């Protein structure tokens, strides 16, 4: 009574799977006899199963999709109880691997439950030239005497082959040995056992080709050498070498074998395996010193899956040598340290010290106003600053500063320049740059000479009227403190607006500035809108606006303002108002425009340039030549302007090729600009290069 053999278990997995998933297919297969694709219930009932041939193409797709279900099915099926014929072939090795647990269980069940017929347990070849097979009589006790069973084999190399008896018996081991004369590679062999009365126990699965049953012998002459020990002495590498097994004919190339090394610690349970490779030596990395390791090797034929037995183990151990390493470490540290120091010294020696300092420790860029020590500014020491400016000051300061920065070409000082050749005044070196910067009244009247560094590319400030009173130095001092709030109430404003006239007119400032210069309310850095060819610096109206505000706040006197405005019309007023609306920034174009006809625009067009100041002047924002000086409110009632942003966005270009800048939130004072019609509406957007071209054209 044949039951579904173990060999069919694979199919059963599929069956079950099919049964679960693809019910419609199950109906096509009715019995084991037909196709062997049946549900497990058929096999359980004991229907005979003979050789099955499977042609189920559609199953492939199903299988391809769901191979992972196999494991699940295995679990399911293992719970099912069926028996299979004991003559399961040794060839189904991989099946056995996957279902080893179950098959053993089943075999036990089988053996207990049903008699097991004689079968072959294994056929093996060691050298691809001979092979041998072992059988077992099973539980048929009447066949237990060895001579009862005979082995017959069939070589399927011709259609008319016939069964022949085993060439060499070894009844003690129940082994049949095929020597080289009887062994042919690449030709299928089939084996069967025959008992008396010609009872044949044949399992179709016991057919094989010799090359598929090769299990090479393990290698011999294993030994190991220490390759290297780590600097810390805790781990080491070992080179293990061996000889190929003598039975395998490697020298003629008949067998190509690969080796797999496995190692483990002495008392560990699991082995660590390295990759199989065909050479007769291999390095094991990362073994720990002081631990003993066990190493063994096994072989297999290249391209075939079966491994041979393991070789005998060898033991590897290296004792720790900790002390040696500290010396090495120490020497390493010393060497590197000394080398580093030497390099450093060399660098210092080779290069000029200052250059080295420059390279290694570049100074932080800071405003380098000649004559002003930024440290003082930071500290905010008013008195000291005052002292410097005034006392130690005039004359002392510049030289001090220049000493400090004598050789730094990159230090760009904000210089005060002399007023061309017109200034006939003698140079007064003693006037501090700060004072010049801020336009404070100097001791001397008239133009100040330029600094002693004509090659610096700092901007040149034009001459400045210097009627500042002494108190303005205080103003100056106060104003130098950056970020001082407006509570200072110190304005320097009128000075700025004071014309750079060569005349010694007392500046409006004096009349107005009861208090502090408006400069206090301005940042130390003002936005330079433009540089006049004559050297004047056009500051952003932002400051000017603030100045204006303060002015207005301060002085109730319209007269002063009126004076201011009258001054406005003078050519010397060159507060070039960049943006009538008060935004401080405009693009290059307008700067150019501004710069081009300053002289023409000046008279009566009411530009105001804030002269000087040794601030860095760049051709800053251009503005519409026709922009009116938003600021100087002609009337004292002019509203205070809201603080303006220093930057604005050019909104668009209008038809007059003027830039339209952002409108500030607050309204500009329209009425105060009668003479200066706003020609520049607010621009929106950014100026693109092509637009720039249009502007300039």
């Amino acid at each position, binding site marked *: 009574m044949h039951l579904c053999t173990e*060999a069919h278990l694979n199919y059963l997995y599929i069956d079950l799977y099919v049964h679960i998933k693809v019910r419609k297919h199950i109906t096509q297969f009715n019995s084991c006899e037909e196709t062997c694709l049946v549900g497990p219930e058929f096999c359980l009932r004991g229907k005979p199963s003979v050789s099955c041939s499977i042609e189920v193409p559609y199953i*492939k797709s199903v299988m391809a999709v769901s191979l992972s279900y196999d494991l699940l099915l295995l679990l399911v099926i293992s719970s099912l109880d069926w028996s299979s014929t004991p003559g399961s*072939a040794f060839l189904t090795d991989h099946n056995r691997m996957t279902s080893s647990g179950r098959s053993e269980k089943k075999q036990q069940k089988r053996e207990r439950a049903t008699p097991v017929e004689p079968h072959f347990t294994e056929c093996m070849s060691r050298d691809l030239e001979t092979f041998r097979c072992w059988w077992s009589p099973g539980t048929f006790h009447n066949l237990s005497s060895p001579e009862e069973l005979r082995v017959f084999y069939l070589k399927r190399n011709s259609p008319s082959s016939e069964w022949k008896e085993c060439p060499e018996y070894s009844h003690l081991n129940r082994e049949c040995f095929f020597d080289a004369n009887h062994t042919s590679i690449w030709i299928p062999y089939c084996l069967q056992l025959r008992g008396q009365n010609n009872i044949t126990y044949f399992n179709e699965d016991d057919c094989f080709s010799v090359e598929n049953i090769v299990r090479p012998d393990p290698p011999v002459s294993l030994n190991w050498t220490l390759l290297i020990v780590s600097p810390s002495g805790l781990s080491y590498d070992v080179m293990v070498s061996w000889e190929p097994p003598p039975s395998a004919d490697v*020298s003629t190339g008949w067998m190509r074998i690969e080796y797999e090394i496995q190692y483990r610690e002495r008392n560990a349970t699991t082995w660590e395996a390295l990759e199989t490779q065909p050479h007769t030596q291999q390095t094991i990395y990362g073994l720990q010193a002081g631990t003993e390791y066990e190493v063994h090797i096994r072989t297999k034929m290249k391209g075939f899956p079966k491994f041979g037995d393991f070789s005998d183990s060898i033991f590897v151990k290296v004792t720790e040598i900790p002390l040696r390493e500290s010396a090495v470490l120490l020497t390493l540290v010393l060497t590197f340290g000394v080398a580093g120091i030497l390099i450093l010294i060399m660098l210092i020696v080779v290069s000029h010290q200052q250059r080295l300092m420059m390279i290694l420790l570049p100074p932080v860029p800071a405003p380098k106003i000649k004559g002003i020590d930024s440290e003082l500014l930071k500290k905010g020491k008013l008195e000291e600053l005052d002292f410097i400016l005034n006392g130690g000051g005039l004359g002392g300061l510049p030289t001090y500063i220049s000493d400090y920065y004598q050789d730094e070409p990159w230090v760009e000082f904000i210089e005060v320049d002399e007023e061309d050749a017109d200034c006939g005044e003698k140079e007064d070196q003693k006037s501090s740059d700060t004072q010049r910067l801020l336009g404070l009244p100097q001791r001397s009247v008239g133009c100040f000479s330029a600094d002693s560094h004509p090659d610096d590319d700092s901007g040149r400030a034009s001459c400045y009227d210097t009627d500042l009173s002494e108190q303005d130095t205080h103003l100056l001092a106060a104003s130098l403190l950056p970020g001082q709030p407006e509570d200072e109430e110190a304005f320097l404003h009128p000075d700025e607006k004071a014309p750079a006239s060569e005349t010694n007119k007392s500046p409006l400032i004096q009349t107005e500035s009861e208090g502090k210069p408006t400069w206090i309310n301005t940042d130390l850095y003002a936005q330079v809108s433009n540089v006049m060819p004559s050297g004047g610096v056009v500051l952003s109206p932002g400051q000017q606006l603030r100045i204006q505000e303060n002015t207005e706040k301060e002085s109730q006197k319209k007269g002063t303002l009126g004076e201011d405005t009258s001054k406005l019309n003078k050519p010397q007023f060159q507060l070039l108002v960049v943006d009538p609306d008060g935004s401080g920034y405009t693009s290059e174009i307008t700067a150019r425009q501004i710069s081009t006809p300053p002289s023409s625009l000046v008279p009566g067009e009411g530009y105001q340039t804030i002269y000087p100041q040794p601030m860095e002047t760049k051709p800053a924002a251009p503005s519409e030549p026709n922009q009116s000086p938003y600021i100087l409110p002609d009337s004292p009632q002019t509203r205070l302007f809201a603080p303006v942003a220093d930057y604005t966005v050019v909104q668009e270009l209008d038809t007059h090729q003027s830039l339209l800048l952002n409108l500030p939130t607050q309204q500009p004072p329209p009425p105060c600009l009668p003479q200066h019609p706003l020609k520049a509406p607010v621009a929106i957007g950014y100026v693109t290069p092509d637009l720039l071209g249009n502007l300039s054209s």
Partner: protein
Amino acid sequence: LKREIKKIISAVWVGIICLVFSSRLSTMKAASICPNDQTGCHLLPLANLFDRVIQHSARMHGISDDLHSEFELYFLPSKNQIGRVSRNCHTSTILTPNGKENAQRIAREELAEIILKLLVAWRDPLWHFHQSMSQHDEFTNFSSNKSLEMSDMVHELRKGVLKVVEKMQMLGIISNSVGDTGSPEALLTSDSAEWRFMKDYDLLYCFRRDSNKIQNYLKILKCRIVPKHGC
């Protein structure tokens, strides 16, 4: 001085690079193929050729093995098919040595010729196999690629073996009797129809076996001709 420093640094870099290149060049020169005039030195290129060809055949065998196992997974044929299959292999008509002694006794020219015959015989079947595989949607792209690779490898291997044979003939190791597989078509015509009737699985089984044969024969040939170089 900054500029000077930069110049120095760039000069140092150039020097380092030159050093590296010169060292590499010198090492390359040192690794010429025949440093000394050894006796077997002229055979070294042949041994290299053999090695490459053998590697190629090993890879081919590996791929055929993979495909065969995949087919087993899909088709799940019973094992008794092994016995049945041998009759169907279309290369069964080619007489091949079936053991080590036979392989060693046979003449080198004959062994080379057998190898070439085998390779030629598998050219068309594998191509058709690949075609039929790519048409089946069930097969993964992986398998389809492998079949294509297999088919290509047969081509390449045949060319490689031809080159080896040429080299051997040039060196006088074997006689010129090894036909340039002058008549592969003649070989095929006798077997032409057989392989078309083989099922895919049988084809794979046969090819797996034959690729192992080819690999073995090549290795034996190499170790007979140039034994000193890695046998």
